[in-house]
C-alpha cells in the first residue's frame, strides 16, 4: 500500500490458522533460493535477526515447520524450506494471482479520495508479543472468576493459561479449539539445565539456547523447544551472566499461567 491504493493482500489461512503475509512468503522463497538465512535476509533487505525471528514465528504458527536447520547461529548452517514450506509458498502465490484479478474488478476507481475501504485497514492485527504459539485446547476448568485453560503446544508440551471465565465465554474457548497463546518475552524466565524446578509456575518448556543477544541491561534468548518451535525470553544481563547460558546449552523457559494471553481467529 505504498501508493495508498487498494492492493489485494492475501492473508493465507488454513483451517482458521492465522495469516502469513507476503513479506514472510518472500523471505521463505529467498531461503529456498539461497539455502541460508543470512543470504536470504540480505536478499529481502532484512537484518539476519529480523529474518531469523520471522522464520521462527512462521514455524511457531504452523503445525509442522516451514524451515528447518536454522539453529546454526549467526554464521548459520544451511537452512532448508520443507515440503510444507514449499506448499505454503505455492498456494500463496497461486491465490495471490487470482485475488489480484478480483481486486481490480472490485475496487474499480473507488480507491481515490474518501477511500471506502479505509476501515478494512485496521482489521489485520499484529501484536508486539514475541511469543505466539498455535495451540489446541485440551481442557477448560472453571472457577468463580477465573478459568484455567490447558492446551497442547506440541504433543509433548502442554501450556496452561489462567484467564477470566468471561473471556472463555466471549471467545468460546472449548476443548478441541485452536487458539493462539501470546506471551510477552519479558514474562519468560530462564533456568539453566534441564532439571524440573520446584516452582509454582505452571509453564515450563525445556529447550536448547539457539540465540543470545546482549544489550547493556537486558539479554535476549531464544530457545529451540523442538518441533521447529522456539521461545524468546528477555532477562537482565546480570541474570544472563550468572546463568552463564551460551548457544547450545540446555535451559528451561518458565512463565506463570496468568501471563498467557489467548487469542482466537
Amino acid at each position: 500500500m505504498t501508493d495508498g491504493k487498494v492492493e489485494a493482500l492475501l492473508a493465507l489461512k488454513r483451517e482458521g490458522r492465522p495469516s502469513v503475509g507476503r513479506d514472510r512468503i518472500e523471505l521463505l522463497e529467498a531461503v529456498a533460493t539461497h539455502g541460508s538465512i543470512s543470504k536470504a535476509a540480505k536478499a529481502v533487505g532484512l537484518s539476519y535477526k529480523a529474518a531469523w525471528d520471522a522464520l521462527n514465528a512462521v514455524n511457531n504458527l504452523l503445525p509442522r515447520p516451514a524451515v528447518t536447520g536454522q539453529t546454526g547461529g549467526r554464521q548459520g548452517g544451511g537452512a532448508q524450506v520443507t515440503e510444507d514450506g514449499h506448499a505454503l509458498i505455492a498456494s500463496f502465490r497461486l491465490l495471490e494471482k487470482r485475488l489480484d484479478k478480483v481486486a481490480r474488478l472490485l475496487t474499480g476507481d473507488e480507491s481515490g479520495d474518501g477511500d471506502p475501504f479505509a476501515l478494512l485497514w485496521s482489521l489485520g492485527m499484529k501484536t508486539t508479543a514475541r511469543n505466539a504459539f498455535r495451540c489446541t485446547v485440551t481442557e477448560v476448568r472453571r472457577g468463580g472468576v477465573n478459568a484455567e485453560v490447558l492446551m497442547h503446544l506440541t504433543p509433548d508440551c502442554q501450556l496452561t493459561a489462567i484467564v477470566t471465565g468471561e473471556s472463555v465465554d466471549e471467545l468460546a474457548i472449548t476443548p478441541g479449539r485452536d487458539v493462539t497463546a501470546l506471551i510477552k518475552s519479558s514474562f519468560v524466565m530462564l533456568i539453566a539445565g534441564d532439571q524440573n524446578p520446584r516452582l509454582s509456575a505452571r509453564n515450563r518448556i525445556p529447550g536448547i539456547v539457539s540465540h543470545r543477544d546482549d544489550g547493556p541491561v537486558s539479554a535476549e534468548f531464544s530457545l529451540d523447544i523442538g518441533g521447529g518451535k522456539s521461545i524468546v525470553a528477555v532477562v537482565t544481563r546480570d541474570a544472563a551472566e550468572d546463568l552463564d547460558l551460551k548457544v547450545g546449552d540446555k535451559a528451561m523457559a518458565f512463565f506463570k499461567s496468568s501471563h498467557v494471553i489467548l487469542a482466537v481467529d
Partner: protein
Amino acid sequence: MQLSARNALKGTVVEIARGQIVGKVKVDVGGQFVTSLVSVEAIDELGLTVGDSVSAIIKSTEVMLAK
C-alpha cells in the same frame, strides 16, 4: 536451582486461601509480607502448608516502584 529472576525473597508461609482455580499464599519475609497468587494446582503440587519455608520469586520487570 539457578533462575534468571533477580529477586528471590526467603520467607515463611503464614496464610493460604484457596479459591477454585487460584489460591492466595501470604509469605512473611523478615516481618514484611509478600502476597502471591498462584494456581491451586501449584499449591497442591508443591504441598504448601502454613509454616513452610519458601522463596518468593519476582522477575525484576514485574516490580513497580513508588516514591
